[in-house]
């Protein structure tokens, strides 16, 4: 099965990725060949096989007490932010 340019445009939008016109043909063809490879899975009989999400059997997600264990370091963390004002992350206006 091969993907069309429209398919790839839709996937790119779902993934919030801008893809240039120059890049597009490469993705259409390489994603099509990847889909071809993963389609081999359909040949495997998996009736009555439970999906496996995690490699270790019997591992359960732990719960911890809901306590504050860290100090407030927002200034340190926000030093990596592209744009900050008064402790807030700035983005283009969303509500007109």
């Amino acid at each position, binding site marked *: 099965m091969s993907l069309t340019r429209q398919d790839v445009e839709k996937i790119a939008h779902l993934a919030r990725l801008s*893809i240039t016109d120059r890049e597009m043909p490469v993705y259409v063809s*390489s994603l099509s060949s990847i889909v071809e490879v993963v*389609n081999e899975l359909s040949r495997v009989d998996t009736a009555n096989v439970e999906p496996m*999400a995690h*490699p*270790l059997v019997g591992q359960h997600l732990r719960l911890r007490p809901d306590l504050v264990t860290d100090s407030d370091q927002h200034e*340190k963390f926000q*030093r990596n932010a592209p744009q900050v004002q008064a402790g807030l992350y700035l983005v*283009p206006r969303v509500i007109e």
Partner: protein
Amino acid sequence: MLHDLSIGELADRLAARELSSVELTRHFLERIERLNPALNAVITVTAEGALAAAAQADARLAAGERGPLLGIPLIHKDIFCTDGVRTSCGSRMLDNFVAPYDATVVAKLKSAGVVMLGKANMDEFAMGSSNETSFYGPVRNPWDTTKVPGGSSGGSAAASAARLAAFTTGTDTGGSIRQPAALTGITGVKPTYGRVSRYGMIAFASSLDQAGVLARSAADAAAVLKVMAGFDPRDSTSVDAPVPDYPALLDAPLKGLKIGLLREFFDGLEPRNAKLIHDALGVFTALGAETLEVSLPHLPMSVPTYYVVAPAECSSNLSRFDGVRYGYRCDHPKDLTDLYERSRGEGFGAEVKRRIMTGTYVLSAGYFDAYYLKAQRVRRLITDEFRAAFEKVDLLAGPTTPTPAFPIGAKIDDPVTMYLNDIYTIGANLAGLPGVSAPCGLVDGLPVGLQLIGPHFAEAKLLGAAHQYQLATDWHTLRPRGYE
């Protein structure tokens, strides 16, 4: 020369005060300065911090403290967050990211007195098998600089092989420690899923990612793994089990050890590589191990399974890069959607975007069952076959890679061909099993790796088998020319 000594020998000299950590650190920093330009293995050198850490290690040694890694210099893969030091993950997206904290792996090694010399180049977000997807350019293989070193821990592998540090750290999601270790003639260990903390290790595929070691021998790797491994409450899938004393267990005799030869790993293997693997198994037999052929019929489905599961998890993990809280932001976004799409479109490289889109596709409405759930079911079949095999044998053996290192540029335009480099390594990740790659010969002057895979938490047995093999052979002592 100092850079050829094992970690144990270096620790002895440091303990005897015949050598200082500052001296040793200067020695490796000089090598990095002189040899790295031809390799591009190290992308950040932290000379000042290294010398300060070395001076501190010397003070601890002077005060009578001893430790297997106290004062030993390393290079971290740039996927591990290092407080106050740029952590790029090989991506333009994080080119300006200075980690505000240490990964658990980094913190553990730091408190053991290890000296960080710098950060190693890698495939962008650990997605690649040749170290050609890095924003910082390809890494070159010290055995032949026209060849790739493998990936994604290609910078770590090249740095260890070229003796730019006593050892390096890496991560392995589909072979990213074992494959580059094989292609650069060093020993790489990928522990059991959950054995080493993933906290502060930038996530690619969370059900597969595992940190490990790239070193020049199994004995060195054992010394490092003992310090790196262990329970971490900050990693939700960290396993709460005691860490064995790996170095103390290296001498377990191989007599009676049952090694299964993975039949599927010899299909399509180049004859000269196959011969080296059979020769290596002959050494194990001579040491008293027993070998028998084992078949895992669903193992060839590892590649399609992996290329659904890993991209799906990657598309989810990498959604955090939004151009808002950290990382690259595009110029003049016209609205919020444009900010997201262009920051990600411009900040991520071609392979990362390809994987995010593959993942988005297999998780999207109408395809989730046919691809994602299907792959999870096949993943269970493969895991069950491994489990059944380990009822008959102690370890499984085969090649690490189908071929030795290939030329830079040979496969980068054909992702599917590139993905097939990991055909022998992916299975262990899907099943969460530990694996080791150890050098077992040369083909056309390029190293070939023997892969050993064990049941969950069998690191001691794997490292012990590799160590016994290295006592009987000297492939792991070969050095690339020009890096002696």
